[in-house]
């Protein structure tokens, strides 16, 4: 298997856990995995990316431009920022809920993510998600990363078994949140399955 998955968002959205779950699941399936993450000053509200690379013929921990099979974007502008990594015909799974940069709020430029979403819809194979709905249904946006994993799995392009991902989620989240995370994963899975094949 050869898969490059780019996960992006804003510091604090749970992108790192999502990337670790994908990587660990692939490893458990006997695949060679490599990844890279943003750590340090950039984490403080800045853009964050995790690159997950699965396969034998891989050297760079960062995905080369135009080679990501899939982008899991937790924020619409971050999806657009990272499009250079996406391969031709690749899929973008994107949260339509924007995180406004403080600089935007201070300057009142009115960024609301809609221009990003519209552009993505026009140009790319997209699956849209909504973290506000997650917050309403599950009581918090903190389960959104697991929903994103579910979607990625559901559209059938991740190359990793759902059962393997669920096993890994079990190992990665506190026991008391296991049920709600499993529910979140299944919710994502159903959303993804709707898009399967007919994007």
């Amino acid at each position, binding site marked *: 298997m050869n898969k490059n998955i780019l996960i992006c968002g*804003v*510091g*604090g959205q749970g992108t790192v856990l999502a990337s*670790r779950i994908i*990587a*660990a699941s692939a*490893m458990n399936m006997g695949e*060679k*995995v*490599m*990844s*890279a*993450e943003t*750590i*340090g*000053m*950039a*984490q*403080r*509200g*800045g*853009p964050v990316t995790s690159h997950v690379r699965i396969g034998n*013929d*891989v*050297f*760079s*921990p*960062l995905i*080369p*431009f135009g080679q990501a099979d899939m982008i899991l974007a937790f924020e619409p*502008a971050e999806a*657009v*920022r990272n*499009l250079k990594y996406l391969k*031709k015909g690749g899929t973008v799974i994107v949260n339509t809920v924007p995180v*406004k*940069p*403080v*600089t*935007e*709020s*201070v300057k*009142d*430029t009115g*960024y609301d993510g809609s*221009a*990003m979403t519209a*552009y993505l819809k026009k140009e790319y194979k997209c699956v849209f998600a909504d973290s506000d709905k997650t*917050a309403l249904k599950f009581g*918090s*946006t903190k389960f959104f990363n697991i929903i994103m994993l579910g979607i990625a799995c559901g559209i059938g392009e991740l190359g990793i078994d759902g059962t393997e991902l669920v096993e890994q989620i079990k190992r990665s989240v506190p026991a008391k949140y296991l049920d709600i995370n499993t529910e979140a994963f299944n919710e994502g899975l159903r959303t993804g399955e709707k898009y399967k094949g007919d994007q």
Partner: protein
Amino acid sequence: MTEYIMGNGAIAMGALKAGISFASGYPGTPSSEIIETIYKRKHEGVYLEWSVNEKAALEGAAAAAMSGARALVTMKQVGLNVASDPLMSLAYVGIKGGLVVVSADDPGPISSQTEQDTRRFADFARIPVFDPSSVEEAYEMIQDAFDYSEKYKTPVLFRPTTRVCHAYASVDIKDYDRPAVCEGFVRDSSKWVIFPRLSYINHGLIEERNVKIGKELSSYRFNTVEGISEKAVVTSGISYAYVKEALKDLKEVKLIKIATAYPFPEDFVLEALRGVKEAICIEELSPYLEEQILKTVGKYHLDTEVSGKINGRVAHNGENSVELSERVLRAFLDTDGKEEDTDKSDIPKVPARPPVLCAGCPHRASFYAVKQAAKGRKSIFCGDIGCYTLGNAMPLDMVDTCLCMGAGITMAQGFSHTNEDTACFAFTGDSTFFASGITGVVNAVYNEADIILCILDNSTTAMTGHQPHPGTGFNLSNGNTVKADIGKILEAAGVKKIITTDPLDHKRSVEAVKECLEEKGVRAVIFKSPCIAIERSDKKCAIDREECVNCKKCIHETGCPALIISEGNVTIDTTLCTGCGLCKNVCPKGAIGG
């Protein structure tokens, strides 16, 4: 057992496998996770500490190594500047047990002040340096570094870069034993006491030894040659991975990887360059390999054209990537570039997203209090290294200078001696204060500077991942320990005016700064409130919709990321808000409560 492990984790596990019984360091991105990994993993028989700074870390490790123990020291590249005093001398004196100094370089720079190159430091100090190109290699190579250190009785530098430190890979991590008890220090003043005579003798011996090490490293397993061609690429570190990736789509070249930049493996390079007409050096930071290759070509009158950073074929600054390597290689191999297949002209403009202080960060409240108190007065605000460097961003705009660890305190003094009628403020975090701020305070008192010292005490080393420090009352070897009291240290240094305040108590904090502004000499305000990532808060602020007039003053004054505009109204993002209440103090209508 195969583990999915971070580069820094692999370095830690490699050091444990090598049998270290002493490890010390000072936090700094991208090196911090090495000590943290050792702490979390099995390490009986290993003494472990977060030192007060890099100099202390290396000096402690030097003594351990002089006692025959294997010792590891970790820091980021600018930390090596702080540790350079002991390092330079230790290079002359030497050690007994293996001593490896990990100095993590940060091309970009991504989280650093400089793009300095640790390989130059190795050359400067005349000690070997190892440069891993992947996580797997880092695990193996750190073990080799200990062997070389012990064999040649010299400290050895190990320099991974950010993309190796923070990459993850599946690595076969071997089990390791508790380290053997070291022999102990054997007194010998002709050996361990640095005197001019000893330095003179050892300097000669070191230069002789380095020739030998260079020869031995010529057959080192990680100095490698792949392929046959008249065109060669010379590379090292993560650039090797980028070049390998870029070469997938390009024709054959000879690929020369140099994992030991100093002592330069000249025999290996001479052999590798045989039949090579053109060589290009693709490396990050300085053109170190390029200079050595040029030197070798000149020395042996080789008919090889050498290019790289020096002749402008490769950029001097910034981090390398697969794309940059590919562009350089295409030009070098006269291969056409890939065609851009899509028109990107209608791509919407992506908003800039600079890092900011977290919602509820006590530093924001401290900066805002000083800003309010100093309003209308000519002031200079000296910043320092840590999360609070982010106080420079609009709308706070409270950092006029930032140079290096601890410099804020001493620079404020310099400004006070040269700028009349100016309030000179120094902002220093608690960890920075202990690392290199205290001597600056002593200097200020001694030389009668006129400064206001603002200690931003959030009870942790936040930026690098919340490591403990002397003010936290916690250490890595025993857990609870004596808590250093910043106020008492200032008092002992002779600071007469010291006010401690909770920055979230806005009124009192403004008063404290105003009170200091009325006086002369060295005055200090200790703003004490824990980092929001350490002490979680369930409190939330709430906006009274009836009262709020949407003037946005709260946003424009504080820049708190939890204050957002939603459907035209100022709204609090309750997922971010910690209820710090700073916005309550700003609101002219008293519309914020909670």
